[in-house]
Each structure stands twice: as structure tokens, then as C-alpha cells.
């Protein structure tokens, strides 16, 4: 299975990868994109089983990415991993079909709880 990690911070992409491995998802293929535009290109080339996206990114934000994927009818499983989680962000995420919103700092357990029901 393929998990696409979308974040403009190189170190955060690394930490998400590390935490995914700690959570037991290390046998999945983990791919990266720096922003929503790169993510769309990556998705078009190789459809992932799950997208983990930051919220605030240059070029295209995470919520813009999700909306664009909805417009395309992509039907991808999508979750946010963000620096903060206001009620408004959670509402917007859910309204646009995100399956979860994990706020930093996160733990392997948080990832397990959110992702295991989705990927198994």
C-alpha cells in the first residue's frame, strides 16, 4: 500500500515517516510531496491508498488539495496532520471528507488509532 505525505517542511515529512514506521505502517510505501500541487502530480502518476496532508502550505493548501481531489472525484482516503486544530478546521476538514485531523505533536499511538481502521 502507498501512503502519500504532503508537507512543506522536510523535517516534518521525515517525522511523519518515522512515526508511521513506529506505528507499524513501515511496510507500506511512503512517498512525499512538498505542497498540494506536487501532491496532485504524485497522485496522478501513482494513486496512493492514503494521503496525509499538512494544512498550511505554499502553492496549494491541504484543504485546497482535498477540495480539488473531491472535484476530480478521486475518492481517496485523506487525513490531515497539522500544527493546530481549531474547531473550525476540524469542521471544514470533516465537511470536505477528511477521515481525521491529527494535531502536532503526535504519537505513534495517535497514528495507530486514526489510520488502522482505514488501512487495517
Amino acid at each position, binding site marked *: 500500500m502507498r501512503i502519500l505525505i504532503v508537507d512543506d*517542511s*522536510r*523535517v*516534518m515529512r*521525515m*517525522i511523519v515517516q518515522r512515526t508511521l514506521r513506529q506505528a507499524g505502517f513501515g511496510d507500506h510505501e511512503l512517498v512525499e510531496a512538498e505542497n498540494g500541487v506536487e501532491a496532485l502530480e504524485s497522485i496522478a502518476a501513482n494513486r496512493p491508498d492514503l494521503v496525509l496532508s499538512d494544512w498550511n502550505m505554499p502553492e496549494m493548501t491541504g484543504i485546497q488539495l482535498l477540495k480539488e481531489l473531491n472535484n476530480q472525484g478521486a475518492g481517496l482516503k485523506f487525513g490531515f496532520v497539522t*500544527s*493546530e486544530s*481549531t474547531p473550525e478546521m476540524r469542521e471544514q476538514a470533516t465537511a470536505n471528507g477528511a477521515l481525521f485531523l491529527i*494535531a*502536532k*505533536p*503526535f*504519537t505513534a499511538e495517535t497514528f495507530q488509532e486514526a489510520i488502522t481502521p482505514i488501512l487495517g
Partner: protein
Amino acid sequence: MLTTSLPPAELVGKLITGLVGRPTTVDRMPAAALDLNQPSTVAAYIQDNGMMASVIVSDLALSASGGAALALIPPGAVQDAVESGSLPDSLAENYREIVNVAARLFNRPNTPHVRLRDMHITPEMLPADVSNVISGATERLFVEVQVEGYPLGKMWLFA
């Protein structure tokens, strides 16, 4: 008027521990002189209306230690930074992630929403509104921060 307030010291430790994955202790210390002619990072936080809310100043040791610990870079890189008196770009970029997430330390259900505007690196000159928060703060918190395995650092919080 609702204002931003400072977090308890232990929440600072909890946040850094969660981010870097290493136990981090934070101890309040008596007011310590802040010398912005020395290399340090200065994180400026604003409310959604653009008004300055708070500032976190981290000395070179803490900025380098946090930046290194976040990316699993060995402590030697921090020693090198402290000895050279400058913060490498890679460690600064990593530490910016920490101060970005640290905005949540200032967010409470009944206070204005706060987010990171910029992280400056002294001794570059700071914007006047940032300097004003430091000099005119009604709340101040000085702490020593120990990320396990890394040099001790100092942090000043102002609101």
C-alpha cells in the same frame, strides 16, 4: 479586551518532548538577562487581526538543540553551533517547526487565536513591534530547557 497569556512551564516541556521524542525538562528560573546581541531565535506570534500577541526567544543552545533533536542530528552539531556562535540554516529551519507548533501554547478557548508570524535570528535587527512586546510585556517567563542528551538552553516568553 482579551489578551494572550503565557503557558505554565511544564506545558512547554510537554510540547517539546512530544515534538522531538526525547524527554525535555523545563524549569523556571529567576529573571535572566536577555542579550539580543547574542545569536538567538525570536519567534513572533500574532492574533488573527495581525496584532502582536507574544514572543518566544530561545538562545543558541536551545535553538540548535531543538533543531537537532527534531531531526535526530547528534549533539555534536549543537556543540559546533555553540562554539561557532551561529545557528546553521538546517537547524534553524528545524527549530522553526518547533516554534510554529508552540503557538498552541498561547491558544486557550477564551483567548484570541494566535499563530506564528515569523522566526527571526539575532543579532539581526528585530521589527519594532517584536521589540515592543519584549520590552513592554506584562507577562514574562524565563525557563531553562533540557532536551535529553543535548546542551542546556534558555527560553524567554513574553506576552
